[in-house]
């Protein structure tokens, strides 16, 4: 079990973020996206194992955060709120107008950052709960969860 400072510190280091504020924003995005994929009982069990301030991101906010998981949410929708927060444009395109985009390459960054949070979450829960979370994740995300575990073991 990590306290909030340890949790954010671990995320900041793993995701190579410049400060704790960005680590906190990353955690908020990932935990909220995770909450949309988990059934209510599992979501609550996981929230109880997290530091209080972070657990709040696992609980329904109203609106989109319904009681039941949406079975059609996949990895792309999972990372959407996170990529929304990325710096996705570079500068003014002098040739045809508009802004040059760099988000095309954001999937590697998104994966690395999501796994940094997964890794910290896994440090707060036992293997049985980790397996249940993995089973609740869509196919294109469960290996991110598994490889975050492997990374944790190798550190």
């Amino acid at each position: 079990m990590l306290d909030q400072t340890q949790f954010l510190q671990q995320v900041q280091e793993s995701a190579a973020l410049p400060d704790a504020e960005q680590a906190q924003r990353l955690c908020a995005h990932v935990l909220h996206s995770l909450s949309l994929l988990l059934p209510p009982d599992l979501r609550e069990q996981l929230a109880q194992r997290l530091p209080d301030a972070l657990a709040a991101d696992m609980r329904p906010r109203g609106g989109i955060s319904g009681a039941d998981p949406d079975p059609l949410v996949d990895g792309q929708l999972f990372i959407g709120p996170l990529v929304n927060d990325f710096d996705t444009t570079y500068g003014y395109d002098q040739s045809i107008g508009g802004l040059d985009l760099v988000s095309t390459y954001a999937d590697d960054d998104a994966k690395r950052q999501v796994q940094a949070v997964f890794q910290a979450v896994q440090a707060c829960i036992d293997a049985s709960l980790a397996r249940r979370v993995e089973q609740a994740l869509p196919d294109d995300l469960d290996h991110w969860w598994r490889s975050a575990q492997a990374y944790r073991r190798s550190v």
Partner: protein
Amino acid sequence: MSERNGRADAGRNGVATLTVQAFHTEHRPTWCPGCGDYGILTALKKAFVELGLAPHQVMIISGIGCGSKITDYINANGFMTIHGRALAVATGFRLANPAMPTIVVTGDGDGYGIGGNHLLHTLRRNINLTHIVENNQIYALTKGQYSPTSEQGFVTPTSPDGAPERPILPTALAFVGGATWIGRGSAGRPQQLAELIVDAIRHPGYALLDVLQPCVTFNKLNTYDWYDERSRDVTELAGADYDPSDREQAWAMVQRWGDEGIPLGVLYREHLPTYEDGVVAYKRHRPPIAFMEQPLSAEQFDALKAELL
């Protein structure tokens, strides 16, 4: 349409065993990671399966824009047209083949801006089309200019001092224009979106489905979180007894937007004769082209095709 996954799979599997796999293509979307268009693509495939529509039994007609590339990413009949003209092409297609469910996919700039005039006349015609508008409140494919649904004051390369105009509210525009089915979904809620697409396709007449679709790259205002905080089921905002066929209740909901809550669901539904019902030529002397005896045999058609390709 790919023979490998399309007609062949549909014919082999039949409707009873149709799965979303039948709609997969080998093309990897070029959308930005996390784009809301992924949720719309997933919901559309799911809706086709729910309706038992095999890839060869449905037509998708799109315009130009990030989301309009959907015809490349779904294994079904598809026609990517030109900017703003998808509704016009779809109208022609429907008249030629009124038996095939036809989905029109455009963005907000394409559907409400460039194609605004076509929208007005499609609304009043009530032709049997399901129009899905991927409304990300920006021109994304052209790299970030403000669109007809961008918020007033929205700063972009084409509005460095903020967009001067007030935005279009598509649901209200559709209501006064005569749409007989109006709904709103969210790319972030694909399950509900799939249900709305099913309802829209079943509706006899024109159905406008406005979809909140975050552009992760160019729109840093109307984000997943922005929509998340404001989106509510229409029954939550209007009450559990909300009746989309009640014009007075519907008028209140189609005008609702922003911090006071954005309603999701079927906002309005009315049953009126469709445009196809009124095409006199069908009844008097000419069936739709798709039902006519074709002047060429299959062999002659293949020979002509080979000559031209």
